Structure formats: structure tokens, C-alpha cells
């Protein structure tokens, strides 16, 4: 048992660190610091820089543009990105759709879609959840009926509503789960379709979240025509793709590196905030204790992730134990947000949005912490709520 990185990994870390320092766009960093809403171009600019370097899709097979990094290198990559406070590459195309594409897609589909994903040309969104189907995804109702078009080609005509579509307002394309056989058992009649978001009949409606932001959307599909060749894998076997997607990219789900960075920021903030007795907040017995307990829990999570990673390196894939990473990871993120809001004291209350930057109302570090806290509640809900994760562990790990 040891924790040492071999020299080649240390060299890799230095390379990554230098690359990030030299190439991360300055104006993007400034926008982030000001708390500005990022545009589609903001997101894609960094993606394209990474693509040029060949680092936009590390986990892909090398022949398709992946990096061939070891799990340790991927771990270093995520640590260093967090350290440098960079945007992540959006997961919808690179991490969620692509593995389905290169696992189940035809050669033609791969050639048509993967380059656009890898290079940050196409913006993808996810069409999974529906108003009536949250944790119970297989109950989805959006209907796709097969027709022969006037042009003699085969199409699906899609009708229904998807919801919680993150950043769907920018999307060029979406991957959708639709019901192609309403008479089959719930999981057996579902197909996996790629839909051009500019298709007639698609409407994207903003959902404003608690903190006032626009991150998620409803997507309405009204007689949307989708060519049959946009279906991945067999008709009525889309559930296979959906399951595979859910199993991919569980590493990083714990968000250890980001939480470490968040903890650093919290400590920094608490060194500048005053406590009731006029000392700094980080010297306050109870606030320090909460920070210490959080730090210890984060260390435990980090080593649990490292153990999972070591298991992966040695050929054991990430099992349903990774649900632990999801549960503890989100709990820690939420506690960080909670403590930051607590640290802000009275200045947690103002709702200033982007106007708050340099407004002189409260310290910069307290800007929008309440928003982060409110918005952060979602992390224990989406991607399978933490209650669902516990069901999974109970069944798959404890064998109950």
C-alpha cells in the first residue's frame, strides 16, 4: 500500500498545470469571477482549445480522439482542472452521448456525430426526464410513431414533453428516449433517437430555478419528424443504451477535486469574515469545527474514490459502490454551500445577481452564495436522487 505517484505521473501533472495556466482564456476567467452568465460561445471557446490540444475527450477510445490516459492520469486531470477553477467540458456530448454512440452506433453515425462532439462544434442536450417520470425513467410517455414520408423515406414522428433539459436553450442536437412500442413492458418499448433541435415542432421553454437562474428547460415536441437513421441501436432497445450511459463516467461523480477547491475558498472566506467577538470566523471554535469535520469527511471520500480508482486500474470496473460517491459527494458539496452561506452572515441575504460585482454591497466573496446554496439542492435530486442511490446500494451491494 502506498500513495506515491510514479515519476511519469508527476511529469504529467506538471504538463497539465502549465497547459492550464497558459491556455485558459483570460476573459472567460474574468466573467466567471464577476459571476456573469456565460454564453454559448464562452462554454465552447474552452472546449475548442482543449480539442486542439487533443484533450477534450480523454476517456474516448484513442482512435476516436481519446487520450489513452490511465485512471491515475484522469484523476490528475480532474484535480488540476479544479485547482485552476476552469470550466469543465460539458458532459452531454462528450461524456454521456459519445460512449453510447461508439458502443452502439453504426460506423456512419460515429463518423457523422463524434467529430462535432469532440471538437466542440455541436451543442448536445439530453431528452430523458418527463413531467411524469423522474426517478422512474422507464415510465416515459413521449411517443414516436414510424411513418413513411412523402419523400419515401422512413421517419419517426415524435410527440411529447421532456423536462429538466440542462442548457437545452443552446442546443443544436439532442438525444432522446422515446416510446416506440406502447404495448410492450415499460423498458422494452423505448428507442434512442438523435434529434436536430432546429426541427419544426420543437419548442424550448425556460424553467427558472429557485435562485433565479436559467439552466434547465422544458422541451416540447409536436409532430417532430426524425429520420430513422438517427436512431441509435435497434428499435425498442433504447433502454440498453440508456443503461449504458448511466454506467459511464461515474468517476468524477464524487467531485472531490472541486470540493477541495471549494473548501479552500471557504477557509479563505472565513479568514476574512469576522466572528461575533471580533476575531476572524476561522478562529471561532464552532465554525472551525464544522470546517474540520467537513475536511475529514472529504478526505474519507477522496480515499474511497481512490480505492475505487485503484480497483478500476486493476481491472475491476466501478460497481454500484459508486453510488456512495454520488451520495457523499453531493452531501459534501451541499454542506460547503451551507457553510459558505452561514459565513456570509447578513450579507447572505442580498439578491444582487451580476449587478453585485463591485457594487460595494457586502464583500465580494458573499455574492450569490444563497443562490449557490439554493441551486445546489438539485445535486441530491438529479442523476438518480440520493434516495434512489440508497435503493441501488441496498439491492446491488447488500443484496437485499
Amino acid at each position: 500500500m502506498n500513495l506515491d505517484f510514479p515519476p511519469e505521473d508527476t511529469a504529467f501533472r506538471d504538463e497539465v498545470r502549465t497547459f492550464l495556466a497558459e491556455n485558459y482564456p483570460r476573459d472567460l476567467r474574468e466573467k466567471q469571477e464577476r459571476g456573469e452568465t456565460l454564453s454559448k460561445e464562452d462554454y465552447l471557446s474552452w472546449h475548442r482549445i482543449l480539442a486542439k490540444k487533443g484533450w477534450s475527450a480523454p476517456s474516448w477510445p484513442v482512435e476516436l480522439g481519446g487520450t489513452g490516459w490511465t485512471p491515475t492520469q484522469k484523476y490528475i486531470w480532474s484535480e488540476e482542472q479544479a485547482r485552476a477553477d476552469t470550466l469543465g467540458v460539458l458532459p452531454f456530448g462528450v461524456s454521456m452521448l459519445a460512449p453510447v454512440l461508439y458502443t452502439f452506433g453504426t460506423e456512419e453515425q460515429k463518423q457523422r456525430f463524434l467529430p462535432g462532439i469532440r471538437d466542440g462544434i455541436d451543442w448536445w442536450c439530453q431528452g430523458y426526464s418527463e413531467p411524469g417520470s423522474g426517478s422512474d425513467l422507464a415510465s416515459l410517455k413521449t411517443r414516436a410513431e414510424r411513418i413513411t414520408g412523402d419523400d419515401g423515406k422512413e421517419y419517426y414522428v415524435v410527440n411529447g414533453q421532456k423536462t429538466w433539459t440542462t442548457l437545452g436553450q443552446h442546443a443544436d442536437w439532442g438525444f432522446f428516449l422515446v416510446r416506440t412500442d406502447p404495448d410492450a413492458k415499460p423498458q422494452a418499448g423505448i428507442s434512442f433517437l438523435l434529434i436536430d433541435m432546429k426541427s419544426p415542432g420543437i419548442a424550448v421553454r425556460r424553467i427558472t430555478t429557485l435562485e433565479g437562474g436559467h439552466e434547465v428547460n422544458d422541451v416540447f415536441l409536436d409532430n417532430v419528424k426524425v429520420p430513422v437513421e438517427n436512431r441509435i441501436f435497434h428499435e425498442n432497445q433504447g433502454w440498453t443504451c440508456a443503461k449504458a450511459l448511466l454506467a459511464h463516467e461515474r468517476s468524477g461523480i464524487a467531485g472531490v477535486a472541486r470540493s477541495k477547491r471549494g473548501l479552500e475558498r471557504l477557509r479563505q472566506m472565513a479568514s476574512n469574515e469576522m466572528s461575533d467577538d471580533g476575531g476572524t470566523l476561522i478562529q471561532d471554535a464552532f465554525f472551525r469545527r464544522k470546517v474540520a469535520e467537513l475536511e475529514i469527511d472529504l478526505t474519507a471520500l477522496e480515499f474511497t474514490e481512490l480505492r475505487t480508482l485503484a480497483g478500476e486500474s486493476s481491472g475491476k470496473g466501478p460497481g454500484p459502490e459508486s453510488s456512495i460517491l454520488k451520495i457523499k459527494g453531493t452531501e459534501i458539496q451541499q454542506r460547503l454551500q451551507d457553510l459558505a452561506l452561514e459565513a456570509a452572515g447578513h450579507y447572505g441575504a442580498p439578491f444582487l445577481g451580476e449587478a453585485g460585482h463591485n457594487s460595494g454591497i457586502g464583500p465580494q466573496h458573499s455574492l450569490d452564495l444563497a443562490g449557490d446554496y439554493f441551486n445546489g439542492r438539485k445535486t441530491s435530486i438529479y442523476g438518480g436522487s440520493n434516495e434512489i442511490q440508497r435503493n441501488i446500494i441496498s439491492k446491488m451491494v447488500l443484496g437485499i
Partner: protein
Amino acid sequence: MDFSFTEEQSMLRDTIASYLADNYSFDQRRAGLGREPFWRPNVWSAFADELGILGAAFPEAQGGLGGGYTENMVVMEELGKALVVEPYLGTVVIGGGFLKHGASAGAEEMIGQIIAGKAILAFAYAEPQGRYNIRDLKTTARKEGTGYVLNGHKAVVTGAPYATHLIVTARTGGGQREAGGISVFIVPKSAKGVTTRDYPTVDGFRASEVYFENVALGAEARIGGEGEALPLVEKVMDEAIAATCAEACGVLRRLQEGTVEYTKQRKQFGVPISSFQVLQHRMVDMFIQLEQSISMTYMATIRLSDGDAERAKAASAAKVQIGKACKFVGQNAVQLHGGMGVTDEMAIGHYFKRATMIEGLFGSTDHHLARYEVLSLGTAA
């Protein structure tokens, strides 16, 4: 030992509840918050005239209905249920509290104005450096002639954008965190040298940063003794805390009941999600938190009439319970609503936001635990 309400108190509750049911639905509230002046003066007028509730907690001799703490409790709980932003707390509970307990020249008239809905007060006590320590004051009121000159910066003064007057704590003597040397003033917001920067708060209320630059005050602006106002401030703050606990009970009740309601309707895997035992027990724990909060609100309200130490201990104990309940019930209400809990479109999230802000109002849970400890267990090492 008696926890029941008088007939008048029950009527007061019904009056407000029925008015708010008609005039303060979620959509009506949202519409009011979305446009200038970001509150609804007509609701306030109705409180004064149509409902006549602004005088409920004032003595009859001062034109009120002769009620007191229990009336404030009843009113605040109903306001909490509807997430009312109009400034009953600042005006009647806090403003009224200062005017009732502290000797001041214009108290009679000001109380009349409050009851009539003409005077609206906001409490400017917090400062950027002081966190929840109400003694930590850099704002000064320098004696000049028979009056004072006020200078300083007050932080996040809730309700200041709507206020006609501000109640301000300031040093007429003593060092920055000393108990002695604190005085309280009532200052017209229109006075020369008063400027504000107004903004919304995350729970739909509005607040201001308030700056005083050489504001000239007459001696009659002072409430209570010069340099001796700390006990008065503590007393009124405790009254404000008890009232806030009552508001919180209203908020918590809506969170708890709304969650039970939602989970009974929301179906997953072919059954209402309320059929999942884990969610049932979570809701039971939410319900227990609510019940314990109601108990502590009663306790603190009753003890407001006790001596300083008992009153302070009770108020801090209640605020600790309320703070914990707001966090637990609020977070779990959102969690059990799933995605719907984090949208702006459903009421539940707005109750959650108010509950979250109440956690820190007049001192965080840690602040009040520390205050309670000194009163119950003595000073630490």
C-alpha cells in the same frame, strides 16, 4: 397552565387568514414582488383600515386593541403562512416594541401613526463588521447642543426601502464592542444626510444599506436613556425573535403540509411516492420538528414577560430550535419535491428561501447557542 387562545385572538387569526386567502395567493404575491414599488401598500392600508390589525398589540390607552405578545404571535404565524413581505415585524413588533418600552417624546403620536398605517419603521442595527453582535457598533451619535449628529453605515436593513422611519442603534459613548454607551434613535428616512441603497433579498423582501452622514437629530429622537439602551435593545430583539419564530411556524407548516400533499399526488413506479417508507419517516421527522417549533414559540412568547435572563434564555432557545427546523424541514421539503422543489414556479421553493433566511435572522443557530450557554451554564473557561 393554559395554551388556549381567547375568542378575540381566534377572531384575529381568522380575520387575517381569510384576508390573505383572498388577497395574498402565491400568484398575487409574485405579481406584487415583480413590479414597483416591490411591495403592496394597499395590503398595508387594508391591515390598518379594513382589518384593523396594526393596533392589535398596542394598549388601548394608545389607541390599540389592548393585546400584546400573543397577538403578535397569532399575526406573525399567519403572515408566515402566506410569505407576507409587508413590514409588520419591523413596524409593529420592533418599532412598536421600542416605543412601548423606551421612554421617548413622540411615542404616543408615532404609535397612532403606526396603527393608522401611516408610519412604517425599519430596524437599522446590524453593521458590516459586527456579524450578530448587536454591541459591535461603529455608528456614532455625537452630542451637539441639545441634540446629536449621526454618522455610520448600517447593513442589510430589512424593510428600509418601504420605511418612513428608521430605528437606529448608535454609540453615544464607549468602545466598539462595549455594553455601555449604546443609544437608540428614531430617524425619519427623509432626514438630511440619510441615504440608502435599496435591493431585493433572496426571499422576496427588500432591504437597504443605510448611510448616515452628519444627520442632525433633536433630543426627542432618542428612545430610552442615553448610553443605556442595550437592555432595551435586547428586550425588543427578543420580542422580534419570538415573533420571527411564530412566522417560521407558519412557513414550516406550509412546507410540511405541502410536502405531504405533494407526495400523495406524485406518482413514480405506479404508486404515490408517499407510499415509500423512507419518505414517510422523513415527513414524520419534519412534522416533529414543526411541533417542537410550535412548542418553543409558545414557550418564548410566554416568557417574554419574565425577567431579562429568563426571557433571553427562552428567546435564544426558541431561535435555536427554529433555526434547526428551518434547515431540516426546508431542505427535505425541497428534496421530496424532487425537481419541482428547485423551480421558481412552485410555492415550496419560496417557503424554503424564507425559511433559510430566518435561520440567520437576528442571529444564527450558533449565535443563539452561545448566548443560551452563558445564561444557562455560565461563562466558559
